[in-house]
């Protein structure tokens, strides 16, 4: 049934749904089972989402490339376009530290390894690392000059990631294993801070003056 997964909850769609269907050891189904049909539908849905994203991105890229053009009310000038990309780099790192790593870490008394992203297929650490590398690459692309502090901060992220033994974070009940994931979260926040200081300063973009401190 084409499009059927679109009607189901977001958590059962996309990679989270595939992680469950492909990685959950208790689910045992053959090519003729409904489970297999669902996996095929999930994959088709992901493909449709990716196609839609790519199409929309082409339209949006035109707006980014031509800020201030008549009718472009999204980006009124070049600084707004740059700021939008810069903000994405920071938001990606915040999401990674707070959600990808923060959610499974939970409270120190109650870690929640089952909240790790894609844990059944051991995607938790690779996804976090891919986000950090992508944010670094985006920051580098936005800068006209080298960003040595940002480069060092990514090295620190890579070092912290190599120390983690279970890429699915299923060992974080162990205080030592938990500490290694916490250190990775710290390093990812440090990467965000390095980009803020090094690139934000060079671009003349400061964090929200009004949004951070209301009245």
């Amino acid at each position, binding site marked *: 049934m084409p499009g059927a997964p679109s009607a189901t909850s977001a958590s059962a769609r996309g990679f989270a749904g595939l992680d469950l269907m492909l990685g959950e050891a208790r689910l045992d189904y053959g090519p003729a089972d409904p489970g297999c049909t669902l996996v095929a539908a999930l994959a088709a849905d992901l493909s449709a989402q990716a196609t839609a994203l790519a199409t929309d991105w082409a339209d949006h890229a035109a707006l980014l490339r031509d800020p201030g053009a008549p009718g472009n*009310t999204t980006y*009124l*000038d070049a600084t*707004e376009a740059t*700021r939008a990309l810069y903000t994405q780099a920071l938001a990606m790192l915040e999401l990674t530290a707070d959600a990808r790593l923060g959610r499974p870490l939970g409270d120190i008394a109650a870690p929640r390894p089952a909240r790790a992203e894609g844990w059944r297929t051991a995607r938790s650490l690779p996804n976090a690392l891919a986000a950090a590398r992508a944010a670094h690459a985006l920051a580098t692309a936005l800068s006209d000059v080298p960003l040595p502090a940002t480069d060092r901060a990514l090295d620190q992220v890579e070092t912290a990631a190599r120390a983690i033994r279970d890429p699915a974070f299923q060992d974080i009940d162990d205080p030592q294993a938990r500490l290694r994931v916490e250190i990775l979260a710290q390093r990812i926040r440090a990467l965000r801070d390095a980009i803020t200081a090094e690139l934000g300063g060079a671009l003349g973009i*400061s964090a929200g*003056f*009004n*949004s951070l401190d209301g*009245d």
Partner: protein
Amino acid sequence: MTTRRVFLSALAAVTAAPAIGWADAGAPTWLACARDADDGFALYGLRGDGSLAFRVPMPARGHAGARHPDRAEAVVMARRPGTYALVLDCATGRGLARLNPPAGLHFNGHAAYLAGGTVLATAEQRADDSIGLVGLWDTATWVRIGAWQTGGLGPHEILALPDGNLAVANGGIATDPTDRRKLNLDTMRPSLAILGPDGDLRDLVEWPEMAQNSIRHLALRADGTLALALQWEGPPGEVVPLLALRARDGRVTLADAPDPEVLAMQGYAGSVAWSGDGAQVAITSPKGGRVQLYGADGAFLAAQARPDVCGLAPLPMGFVASCGSGLLLSLTDAGPQALARHPVAWDNHMVTV
């Protein structure tokens, strides 16, 4: 002995043209506080086309102010807990007087002229218990002549009404005088107080059913309808109105917007204004990076995403908004358009002069 060289340099100093020519360049339409690129604070006069009319350095971060009803004079208040207010010639930016709150009180960022401009009212609170006061100043001598109780804690914006009364947004929040920390969010009781010409309490709007919705900013329509901009201090993610309207007869309407629109504002409205024609009312959320437009009946009309937007002032058929990025944005039927961009971070409010 004054040497020729010293004399000449002194002459140059007193006759030097200001960076921006004031006299021949036209008086400003708005005043707005900002943080400069060098992290200092200043007040700017802005013309209707977004260009700068003047810049006045400020001793500390400024907030909002008010224009005298007749004279080319305005007052600019420090950000709370404020220790100064600056009275200035709003055509040139020249300082006329500096006010300081009495010991034990601090300014809360907003002010209003009363009694035909003979009295300046300043929103204040007592430092040790956040009890709200309106300080009264003689605008001929700048001597403090008294104070009224506001009937609530932590008053923020105050606004003179056409009937001679004063509207006070009692935010309801007790704050630590040193670090602005909020102390009473579980027991807070915001209110809109209407004070008579003698400071007597004429009306009090309260909403115990959403007591954590702080009333902080006000805007007046020509017919006396007040728009109230709100800030939600309860659990994040709850769908609560951030705009309320109080008709002249006292009837209060809560604005209505679709749930995702409300949530996009992140529980925070930072400024409110009516359009010049009174047909629309707008609120800004720097936290949500969003401007929302409502009809005069409180029905949601449209929204614009704009990072760190906060200041808001009327245009004849729309609004002008100011952003932390330095952007001044016009919002009219023609859609959002950049009016100007300056290398400063515009602070919370724009004051129409």
